[in-house]
């Protein structure tokens, strides 16, 4: 080719120069476990469903379906869960945790409004599974087993399904139509539910029904009593029976001044219920201090708002009609309450005991191979009892007791039962590193204070069982979902693609793989990793 004056070489592109050879570290896209999911007892993939919800519109249904993969009760969870996800949320270190629970409730309610449902897509396995108890754990297990193609029968001793969701949690926290709708959705999958069907001998029931496996979730419904000397005119009852009776339509006679003994969530439910039943004074008596109360902070706050009173560091010595003798306690060095000998009088027409609950395990009497220790059934890591094929979960096994934990047990057991029935080894979840706050580049997130759910005005909370905490509207729910920082996984903000000085990040937009590093040119400067808002890029050393 004829070249211009003084030109001896053709024009070349710098692309001939593969600068990737300079690199000592390479960027790698990672997918870390976000702290919300790490903390969720039900094992929800929170970040994924928030990601779907962030789109709004059609994204809501996808988000709801993602929740339903793990938890069949989004509308219930969005009301009664104590949301450890929010406690763990990294955004709490920036401004305030993302209102995960309120978004979940919005999605759950949206599903009920729109009538979204799920189906059984797995072929029938021909296996029969017995579930004992229709509480959160049993219903969750039944749901997951049914969706895996098993024929499920639930035997429930009580007259209605729901367990503690119905007989423990008052209607002002969980309206019954929400509970009924989400339970019905499970039954619609073909799960058989028999009410008033108490199992007394598990072996016999299993043999009779030809069941291949069983999941036990009878809960803990027996109110624990404490020995308190009481006069004949004293009116003492236990919180579990009181709440249970109320759910069945009874109105317990409590009088004008009600004392509740205990410091857990049930104690607060009992006190708040007493206010609604007309007690002018409801006092929670607890032997330790507020910060040592097992009850959840939000419940304590809501109870205070409703005028529930508290007597900290106090035990009850004796109960007479109309009055109780109480003793002041003091915490010792180990934080244990010790009596001081100082006594006082507390006026009360009735005393409600909320001192914990025990489990009725009589159905296992004929099964010595199922170990029971400290009043609860012993299970292995797969939730299987000493008897092969018999699994247990919820409040009847050791561990924290809550609806969410129960739902998580139900799902976990369903997976294990499914594997056990198929003769497969139980799935061991991969150990994933949790996305730390320090890994985020929070500069990129818009300043966005949290939206709080409105609450019912106090007057109505003291006299009615109307729901106290209201839901978010669509705008707020969308805003709240969009506060998610997507800890530890890519959410396609294009920062890596934009900040690379070498154009070595390729935008390919494949699902699950939005970008690719062009190792021919990546010099390993680390800008993409450093400017990634969600900490989804790690720099890994090259082998040199």
């Amino acid at each position, binding site marked *: 080719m004829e070249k211009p004056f003084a030109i001896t*070489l*053709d*024009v*070349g*592109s*710098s*692309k*001939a*120069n*593969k*600068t990737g050879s*300079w690199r000592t570290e390479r960027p790698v896209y990672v997918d870390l476990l976000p702290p919300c999911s790490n903390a969720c007892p039900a094992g929800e993939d929170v970040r994924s469903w928030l990601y779907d919800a*962030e*789109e709004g519109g059609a994204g809501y249904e996808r988000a709801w379906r993602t929740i339903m993969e793990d938890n069949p009760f989004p509308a219930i969870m969005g009301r009664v869960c104590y949301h450890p996800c929010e406690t763990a949320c990294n955004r709490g270190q920036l401004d305030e945790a993302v209102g995960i629970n309120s978004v979940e409730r919005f999605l759950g309610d949206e599903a009920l409004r729109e009538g979204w449902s799920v189906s059984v897509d797995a072929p029938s396995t021909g296996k029969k599974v017995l579930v004992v108890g229709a509480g959160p754990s049993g219903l969750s297990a039944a749901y997951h087993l049914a969706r895996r193609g098993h024929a499920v029968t639930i035997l429930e001793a009580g007259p209605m399904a729901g367990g503690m969701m119905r007989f423990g949690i008052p209607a002002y926290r969980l309206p019954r139509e929400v509970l009924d709708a989400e339970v019905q959705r499970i039954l619609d999958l073909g799960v058989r539910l028999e009410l008033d069907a108490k199992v007394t001998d598990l072996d016999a029931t299993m043999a009779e029904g030809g069941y291949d496996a069983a999941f036990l979730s009878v809960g803990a419904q027996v109110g624990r009593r404490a020995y308190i000397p009481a006069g004949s005119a004293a009116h003492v009852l236990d919180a579990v029976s009181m709440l249970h009776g109320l759910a069945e339509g009874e109105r317990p006679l409590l009088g004008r001044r009600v004392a509740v003994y205990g410091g857990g969530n049930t104690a607060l439910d009992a006190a708040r219920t007493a206010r609604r039943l007309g007690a002018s004074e409801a006092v929670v008596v607890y032997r330790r201090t507020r910060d040592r109360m097992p009850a959840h902070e939000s419940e304590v706050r809501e109870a205070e708002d409703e005028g529930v009173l508290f007597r900290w560091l106090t035990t009850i010595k004796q109960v007479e009609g109309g009055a109780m003798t109480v003793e002041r306690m003091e915490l010792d060095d180990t934080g244990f309450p010790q009596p001081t000998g100082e006594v006082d009088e507390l006026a009360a027409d009735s005393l409600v005991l909320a001192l914990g609950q025990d489990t009725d395990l009589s159905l296992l009497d004929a099964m010595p191979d199922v170990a029971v220790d400290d009043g609860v059934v012993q299970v292995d890591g797969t939730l299987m009892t000493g008897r092969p094929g018999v699994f247990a979960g919820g409040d009847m096994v050791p561990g924290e007791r809550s609806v969410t934990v129960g739902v998580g047990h139900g799902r976990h057991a369903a997976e294990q039962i499914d594997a056990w029935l198929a003769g497969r080894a139980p799935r061991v979840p991969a150990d994933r590193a949790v996305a730390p706050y320090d890994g985020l580049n929070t*500069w*990129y*997130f*818009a300043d*966005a204070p949290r939206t709080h759910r409105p609450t019912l005005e106090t007057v109505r909370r003291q006299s009615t069982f109307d729901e106290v905490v209201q839901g978010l509207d669509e*705008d707020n729910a*969308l*805003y709240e979902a*969009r*506060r*998610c920082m997507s800890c530890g996984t890519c*959410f*396609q*903000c*294009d*920062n890596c*693609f*934009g*900040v690379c*000085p*070498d*154009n*070595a990040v390729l*935008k390919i*937009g494949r699902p699950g793989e939005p970008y690719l590093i*062009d190792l*021919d*040119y990546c*010099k*390993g*400067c*680390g*800008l993409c*990793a*450093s*400017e990634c*808002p969600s900490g989804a890029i790690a*720099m890994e050393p090259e082998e040199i």
Partner: protein
Amino acid sequence: MTVEPKLYQVDTFAVGNRLLDPAQRSEQARADRSNAITSGHRACQGCGEVLGARYVLDAAMRATGGNMVAANATGCLEVFSTPYPETSWQLPWLHSLFGNAPAVASGMAAALRAQGRSDTRVVAQAGDGGTVDIGFGCLSGMFERNDDVLFVCYDNEGYMNTGVQRSGATPPAARTANTKALGPEPGNAFGQGKFVPLIAMAHEIPYVATATVADLRDLEAKVETAMGMSGARYLHVLVPCPLGWGSASEDTIKVARLARETGIFPVFEAERGRITAVSKIRRWQPVEEYLRIQRRYAHLFGEPRRDDIVARIQAQADHNIDRFGLLDDDPGYEQDQE
């Protein structure tokens, strides 16, 4: 730039945002951006200048529909992009001498006008050496004649390509090859140097703006504004230099962000000699946060610490904050207080 009415997670802080309408995303988020300077260039790892150049030129290419030419002074940007016979440039590009890029660009604009092709726009670019020192006479001439050129200075505060020597844009106390960190007044002297954006404003040209590589959307908006005007326009972009500043290669954008958030580098725009807008500080930080991550200031934090010098730099940043109204709702840039 804020998008109403809903919160879009990363708003416009990030390069893109899947929740935003494509038209509201940055040029750099587009898979079909022109990549005016392509891969294979020999800029250092984490180079701020090449990043700034791509941000500016891609935005200018979009604004002009690709109908533009560039003149480029000698300096890092030219050396690492065009070792004969290779080139990284994907637009018509002309290499001038170190000191005459503004004059060459003026000539290109005149030639295009003479050919009846004034729709082809001219951008000239140089580092701070080629702009504030060596090319300054030509630049001032280009300004006073109001030639139809956007002149972009990529300011990395020194002659980096030749071994990190001091320029008129090197800040006080910074160590360079010829301002050693020795003696009672280590590093570059206080009371010297110049801030060319204010000098450009004194020419009362149509448009002057400053920007950093840490705020892409702001930079792109300024390029678009500039390309929508004719006459002499000046854009001064702060581009950290990992080599000369002694910062980690992954910290280039962080350093630029801190320069803005501390008030060290005021970001504003001005038309015909009047400031029309300033970028407010979002999360204020003391200057020490900015200085500590650059080894060119390491002598301030050794044994003994030179808190007296840090305080003088802080005073300069505070002066900028006050002078340009960089905090909160303070509107008071000095031009409005005439």
